[in-house]
């Protein structure tokens, strides 16, 4: 099969339906759903084909000259496949959820149009073969997400939108300048495992250090590193599927993925260590992990608590990469996937609680387990996964991060991990305990009651099944971590290539 064709098809499988949806009249509900699910399904299929191809060792690349010496490059390496697969799977699930969530609400054509645009941009980021291409899709993602954040049009949503744009556009410009500068220094090289700046380390050391800080500022905003994180908890006013997109599928992941790319495939861990860059990143990540957890503990609003938890959890990815050793990188990369499936479960559940029972705060969760046992089960799995209880996905990440910290000789990071896990338990266990054991005397408000008359399920099936599916995934990812196509297996495959250590295994 022709590689160019496949990469472009993956990009257009969401772009095409997205554009079509923009021009669809509001009442064409059936056609819109068909386009949405059709696009998501085709993308899933194509990513699957690509995954098998890359596993077989085939090369896929597509390039289009933009300027002399500068190309738009799409390429599929094992790292891009990790992110592409994650977003393709989660997009499918989120689409189902969003269709159920927004049923009957106005302006769905606009919503789903931008929704598809967002995912196209995310897949573009995943498949980017060089920094320029990455930047292009990264900025498209910024723009395509804004209409989703302000979708409800309330003053709070508009404020969140403004803040989001102010943060991300400024960061985008810093990134833009940095990338142009880097291209002037080193040419428009493609991402190379181990980095491509080796030759410049001796002559342009200071420039490279400044550039690294600029690149981290640029990506750090989306990855919500402290102190650049404030937009994320405020953006939680967006509808639940958008939060899922922001927190698990696209935006923060794009930032974290950018950091991974820069450290591993632009600078290379060796050069980054040599220039003394990883230490600072490690410190920022550690501070972010603790700070996010503390803030999550203080938040009563359920979605806000989840948002701060994202701030904390995404930094695990950065932490792993900053450890700059094979085990740490495995922990960080695998957390890219694990955090995604776990956090999306939690947001799905939080959205279902709000839509079905009008719950916004953790203190209102008393007795919800009796009314919505399956959703509560999913929430429990998600929460325990975040805490890192074996055999759930989160445990696998934390285990490898811990090993990586020892390997890189940073025992203090172990302390950070333990403290953060304790804090995770402190803010996830109370809602879980309230949900199962708490009692509620008055009846639930049931805002969706009219819609639910005909179902025997606890809520709309399109809200329930996505959450159950991703919860099952997070359980599965932990249980079958030893297999080759599990997230851990795939990440090990990536790291083995990058670090080229013979006979190395987890």
């Amino acid at each position, binding site marked *: 099969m022709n590689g160019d064709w496949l990469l472009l098809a993956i990009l257009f499988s969401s772009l095409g339906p997205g554009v079509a949806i*923009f021009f669809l009249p509001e009442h064409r509900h059936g056609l819109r759903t068909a386009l949405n699910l059709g696009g998501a399904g085709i993308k899933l299929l194509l990513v699957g084909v690509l995954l098998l191809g890359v596993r077989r060792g085939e090369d896929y690349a597509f390039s*289009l*000259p*933009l*300027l*002399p010496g*500068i190309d738009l490059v799409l390429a599929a390496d094992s790292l891009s496949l990790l992110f592409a697969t994650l977003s393709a799977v989660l997009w499918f699930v989120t689409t189902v959820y969003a269709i159920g969530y927004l049923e009957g609400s106005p302006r769905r054509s*606009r919503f789903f149009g931008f929704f598809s645009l967002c995912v196209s941009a995310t897949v573009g980021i995943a498949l980017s073969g060089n920094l*320029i291409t990455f*930047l*292009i*899709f990264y*900025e*498209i993602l*910024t*723009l395509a997400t804004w*209409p989703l954040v*302000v*979708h*409800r*049009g*309330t003053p709070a949503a*508009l404020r969140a*939108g*403004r803040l989001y*744009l102010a943060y991300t*556009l*400024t960061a*985008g*410009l810093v990134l*833009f*300048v940095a990338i*142009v*500068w880097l*291209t*002037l220094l080193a040419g428009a090289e493609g991402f190379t495992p181990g980095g491509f700046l080796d030759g410049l380390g001796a002559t342009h050391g200071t420039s490279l250090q400044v550039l690294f800080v600029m690149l981290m500022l640029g990506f750090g905003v989306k990855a919500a590193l402290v102190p650049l994180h404030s937009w994320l908890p405020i953006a939680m006013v967006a509808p639940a599927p958008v939060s899922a997109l922001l927190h698990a599928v696209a935006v923060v992941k794009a930032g974290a993925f950018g950091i991974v790319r820069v450290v591993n495939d632009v600078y290379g861990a060796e050069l980054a260590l040599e220039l003394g860059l990883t230490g600072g990143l490690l410190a920022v990540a550690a501070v972010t992990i603790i700070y996010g957890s503390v803030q999550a503990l203080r938040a009563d609003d359920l979605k806000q608590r989840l948002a701060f938890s994202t701030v904390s959890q995404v930094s695990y990815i950065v932490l792993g990469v900053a450890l700059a050793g094979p085990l740490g990188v495995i922990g960080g990369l695998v957390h890219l996937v694990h955090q995604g499936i776990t956090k999306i479960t939690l947001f799905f559940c939080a959205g279902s609680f709000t839509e079905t029972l009008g719950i916004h705060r953790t203190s209102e969760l008393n007795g919800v387990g009796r009314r919505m046992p399956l959703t509560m089960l999913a929430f429990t799995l998600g929460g325990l996964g975040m805490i890192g209880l074996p055999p759930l996905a989160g445990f696998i990440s934390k285990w490898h991060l811990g090993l990586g910290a020892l390997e890189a000789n940073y025992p203090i990071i172990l302390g950070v991990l333990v403290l953060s896990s304790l804090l995770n338990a402190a803010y996830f266990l109370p809602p879980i305990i309230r949900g199962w054991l708490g009692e509620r005397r008055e009846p639930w408000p049931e805002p969706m009651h009219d819609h639910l008359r005909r179902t025997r399920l606890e809520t709309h099936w399109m809200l329930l099944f996505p959450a159950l599916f991703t919860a099952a995934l997070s359980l599965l990812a932990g249980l079958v971590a030893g297999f080759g196509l599990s997230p851990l297996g795939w990440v090990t495959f990536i790291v083995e290539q990058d670090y080229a250590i013979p006979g190395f295994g987890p």
Partner: protein
Amino acid sequence: MTPPEASLPLLVSLVAGLSLAVAVLATAWPRQAHRIGPLGALAIAATVGWLARRFHQAGAGGGEAVTRVALGGWEAPLGLMLHLDGFAVTLLVLTAIVALAASLYSIGYIHDRVERRQFWPLWLWLWAGLNLLFLSGDAFNLYVTLELVSLAAVALVAFSGTAAAVSGAMRYLLVNILGSLAFLMGVALLFGEHGVLDLAALQAQAGDGASERLAAALMTAGLMLKAALFPLHVWLAPAHGSAPAPVSAILSGLVVTGAFYLVLRLWLGIFAPLATPALGMLVGLLGVAALVWGSVQALRAGRLKSIVAYSTVAQFGYLLVAFPLMLIEPGAWKVVVFFAVAHGLAKAAVFLAAGTLQHAAGHDRLAELDDILRGRGRSVFALGLAGVSLMGLPFTGGFIAKYLLLDAGLSTVLAGSLIGVLWVVAIAGGGLLAAAYILRMVAPAFHPGPQRAGAVVSPWMEWVPLGLALVAALAGLAGAVTLQLLSLTPGAA
């Protein structure tokens, strides 16, 4: 097979002749002008496309693509020469695209019988003037075509007949007369000194004597007035803001670009020996001031079209900021041209979309436009998409232009120029300001509240802005080919 450059002289004459013929035809039969106009527009655009294709083929094939045609067999220094190079081709293509879009839009916009008879001939003369301006090879011809463009533009601003339009047009007329006079005096000085008008001949003799300095000052000041370059921009917003929508698009997308084309052409050629670092820095600082001032005005303006008009002042600031970069990196002039092209496309699309919204609402006061913005998603989308290009974000022509500008700016910083940091900050920061004023126009569409489609709008007015915005976005793919075309310009690095 004949080489592609063999057909170029004929095509050059064809473009010039066809533009004039269509304009004459529409003037002679005003009743049929609304039929002649769109058909003529298609014909001219197709010819320009053909010319550009042939030119590109000739350049890629290594042939002599730059063409000079002597009209009526009279060679320079006496006769009139048409001159075609990569710079001219690029501007011709930009003009053809924007002009075609504006023409199609006007089919829907200009209904009134009387207005139709006035609009089409004027507009076709304006277009012919622009085409001839880009093809002119001597200073006097440039003056004549510039005058033709200016007068047609003034008449177009005034033609809706409202008080605001007439007063805007009067200001515009005064500015243009002043600008033209200054330009003409400069031309006279040059002719007195060297006895030739042909630009190529002048460039060969160019020095930095007193009369050249004076000529440069006069001609540049005159053209800066016409191009609304800061600080000579005050006339722009009232004129561009009060004109009918297709005219605003033409003025902001093409006419000021035409004047800027001349500035650049002169400073790349005959005035090149006069450019000093101090002058470059002064121009650059003016550019930064224009960026900030224009953006602030756009952020404060209360009317949709005023915002867009002030944005033109701001965006032209980038072109001035690029001036000091050109002194260090001579190749940067191509970047400037590409930026002007990307801006022309995007700005015309924004004006057309704003015109549709204004037509639907019956006014363009931003504070009362919410319901229309919500009801006309398609036009708002076009406005937003073209706006993305103005912000310099991907995947648009504006992004590539911004990339090239930053590239040039950072190169000067790396070459050791400290002031370069200011240019880089201005180039990067200008995008944020643009984002802020574009957002002012788009964000109300997301506020909750009633929605209303307003007055009936012809399909042309709905789809043409969207199409042009798409072209502005896809211009991101045209970077390599445009730079290649521009490199086929003799005398410029």
